[in-house]
Each structure stands twice: as C-alpha cells, then as structure tokens.
C-alpha cells in the first residue's frame, strides 16, 4: 500500500510540475513583469492611441464574426442532424477543417482570393471596393477560423434531445419558425451559449490569418494580437505585456464562464 501511495504522489508531482513549467510559470511571470513597477506603466501602455484603436478593431471584428457564426453554426447543426441531403458528409468534414488548418494557410487562401491577381481581386478593384488590407478581409478571416465552434457544440445536443418534441409541435400545427423558437432553441440554448463563448475567445485571439490579410497598418488594420507583436518587436515590452495581460484576463474570464456553465449543460 505504501508504494502505491508513493506512486500516486510521484505522478501528482510530475503532472503539477509539467503544468507549472509549461503553463502556469510562464503566465505568472508575464503578470509579474507587467506590474513589477506598479500600475502606471501598464496603464500608460494601454492608453496609447494606436493600442486603443487596436482593441476597438478587435471588438468590431468580434462583434460581426460571432453573430454570423452563431446563426451559421445553428443552421449547419440543424442541417447535419435533422436533414439528409447530398453532400452532407462533405459539409460535416468541411466544418471541422478550420480547426485543423494552419491560420497562415487560411490567410494565404483569402489573400489569393481577394488579392489583386486573385479571382475576386480584379472585379473588386474595378468597383473600388477594398477587401484585402481592410476590415472586410479581416472579418472574413476571423469568421473562417472561428467557424466550427457553435456547430460542434450544438450537434451532439441536438442528437441527444431527439426530434420527438419537434414532431409533436408540428403535429399540433406549429410552423417551422414557431417550432424552432419555442421548442428547438430553448433546448439547445446552453450548447449555443457555450459555443458562442468559445467563438468569442477564438475571435479575440485570432492572429495568423489576420496577420496575413490585414497588412498590419498601425492605427488602421492592427488588431490587439497584432499590436502585441508590433510592440514586442519595437522593444516596448511593457506595452506588449500590458496588452497580453488584457487578452489573458479575457481568456481567464472565458474559462470561468465555461466552468460555471458546464454543470447546467447536464441538467437542461
């Protein structure tokens, strides 16, 4: 029994050391570095106009991408679970693809599609519409990388609840919309909320795809994550750390929200 106890303590130590070395240690140092000279440097770094602009831009992109992906995710999940149509397997595979793709590959694909020599580039250029190196491309890139989260949360819930209640509503004369709002949506709401939180986190943190399509123009197409890199490479470590702390705090809030929501998912 004694050796089993030792094994257990050894494994516990190994697991905790692993987490400390890879995850907790580095994060703790960032927090410490940011505030080692008090709050003032961090505050000054965050109140630079370009930094404020970067955060605003990130919020605007997130505010567009999250609702789009929420609607799209629910529609896709309903299509995958409740309907059968040719190409369903393909849709299923395509939904997961953004999770496995490198963000740089995503960025490059959009760059080639909307760039001057791309398929749409010429037409857009002729009509004076700026997509690449402007907000539209950044929004599209963010939608691309955060596409799967809502659908992936909703699909298993839809499978689990079955369609008896929906069938009953139809039999009682409810239309498609009415059934969706009154029956389907209330029963998948926790899955949707969970998916929305994950999508938001992904949108706020997107870096690679946006780095390619934004052109990284300071004060114009620079998002919060791009700003972290720009500050770091200009040796403004206080600035880079301060922005990182804000983003990390948001990530921690996301974690807290997910942890609080998880039990409810089981009971609803």
């Amino acid at each position: 029994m004694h050796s089993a106890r030792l094994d257990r303590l050894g494994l516990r130590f190994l697991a905790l050391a692993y987490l400390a070395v890879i995850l907790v240690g580095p994060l703790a140092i960032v927090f410490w570095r940011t505030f080692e000279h008090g709050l003032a440097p961090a505050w000054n770094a965050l109140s630079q106009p370009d930094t404020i602009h970067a955060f605003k831009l990130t919020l605007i992109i997130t505010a567009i991408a999250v609702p789009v992906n929420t609607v799209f995710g629910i529609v896709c999940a309903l299509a995958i679970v409740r309907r059968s149509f040719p190409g369903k397997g393909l849709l299923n595979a395509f939904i997961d693809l953004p999770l496995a793709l490198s963000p740089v590959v995503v960025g490059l694909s959009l760059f080639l599609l909307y760039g001057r020599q791309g398929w749409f580039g010429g037409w857009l250029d002729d009509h004076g519409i700026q997509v690449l190196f402007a907000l539209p491309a950044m929004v599209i890139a963010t939608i691309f990388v955060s596409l799967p989260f809502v659908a992936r949360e909703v699909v298993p819930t839809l499978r689990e609840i079955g369609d008896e209640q929906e069938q009953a509503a139809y039999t009682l004369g409810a239309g498609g919309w009415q059934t969706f709002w009154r029956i389907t949506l209330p029963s998948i709401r926790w899955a949707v909320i969970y998916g929305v939180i994950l999508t938001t986190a992904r949108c706020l943190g997107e870096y690679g795809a946006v780095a390619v399509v934004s052109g990284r123009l300071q004060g114009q197409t620079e998002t919060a994550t791009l700003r972290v890199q720009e500050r770091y490479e200009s040796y403004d470590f206080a600035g880079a750390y301060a922005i990182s702390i804000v983003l990390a705090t948001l990530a921690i809030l996301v974690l807290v929200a997910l942890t609080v929501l998880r039990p409810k998912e089981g009971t609803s």
Partner: protein
Amino acid sequence: MVIVGLPLAALMWKATSDGTQSFWDAATSPEAIAALKLTLATAVLVALLNAVLGTVTAWVLVRDNFHGKAVVNAIIDLPFALPTIVAGLTILALYGPRSPVGIDVTYTRTAIVLAMMFVTLPFVVRTVQPVLEELEVEVEEAARSLGAGPLTTFRRVIFPNIFPGILSGMALAFAKAVGEFGALVIITGNLPFKTEVASVYIFSRIESGDSTAAAAVAVELLLISFAALLSIGAIRHLATRHERA
C-alpha cells in the same frame, strides 16, 4: 462552403497555375524542405510528449485527490482560450532574454518545442480524461488484488482502454502543432534551415511577394492537416466499433 471551400480552391489553383513543374520546384526547394522537416519532427516530438505527460495529468485529475484540483482542472483549458501570440510571449517571459531562472531558449529549436507544448497541452488530457472517468476504479483494484503490480495494471488494464483516446489526442495535438504560427513567430527568430517552421516560411514568402512558393508549401500543410483529420476520424471509427456492432 463559400467561406471555406472557395479560398482553398483559390489556393490550389494558385499553387498549380504555373504548371506542376514550378509547383514541384517551389514545394521541394531546400529551404521549404528544411522547414517542413523541422515542423514534422517537432510536431511528432510534441505529440509524443503530450501522450506521456497528458496521460499522467489526466490520470492524476481523475484518480488523485488534492486541494485545488478543481482549479488545476480548469487551468488545463487555458491554452485553448489564450491568444497564441500571448502564448509565445509568455514562453519568452520565463525562458527568454530576461528570464528570471536564467534559461534563454530564444531562437532555438527548444523554444519551438516549448511553445508547441504550451498550445497543445489540453488535447491528450481532454481526450483521455473522460475515458478514465468511465473506467471503474474497481477494475484497477481487482487487478492489483490479483497480484498485478502498478506497471502491469497500467499496461494490461488501463492502457488498452485509453489507447484510442491517447491516439486521437495525439493526432489533434500534432495537427495543431504542425500549423502553429502565432506562438512561434516572435520566439523562433525565423532563421532559415535552423528555426524556420513551415507556417513561418509561408508567411515570410507572402511578405516578400513570392506567393507561388507560399502556396506550394501551404498545399503541403493542407494535405498534412487533411491526413491528421482523416486519422482522427478513423481512430474514432475503430474505437467505437464495439458500440456499433
């Protein structure tokens, strides 16, 4: 389909528009090959490290009990929620030029492995944990009371059950590590033939206007991602065959 399919079609078209010969030349240039080799080697190493350390962590989270376990459990998901650029910065804060512990891995391959480990940390833990939770502790105790040592118990009882979980977690970690960009861009220094990984190679080719070279390597990455996705699907299929039979 429009959001995902069309851009990828544009990518394929660009990669092959100048003919297969120039695609092949761009895809097999020495610098591209070096970047791909480095990416694959580090991603495989990271997947293996994840398999061992992730399994240990999952076991501790399920079978062990200590104060603060719930917090540790919640922290595991942090790399999912944290922006990757912040992940890179955090690794440098502890293991970079101003390291408080005197370790500086900037511009080395060790930095690549550390950053990849950071961003892939949750995958194996989260695929193995639910399987361990379902596996009753009595089975392990029965094996022990029949005289099996801890290693035999693990090898004969626990491991066969969690193996599919470990594999699919490894495949996910591998796919993520192969494509990782944000966490690597500021810490590797992007030295060709030394610390330049595939995603960074693609990015630098785009910046210098050579989108054919970028597209060629991007297609290679795309194929690797597809392969990883397919193998995850295959593992799930195999792992659930007895449930469907």
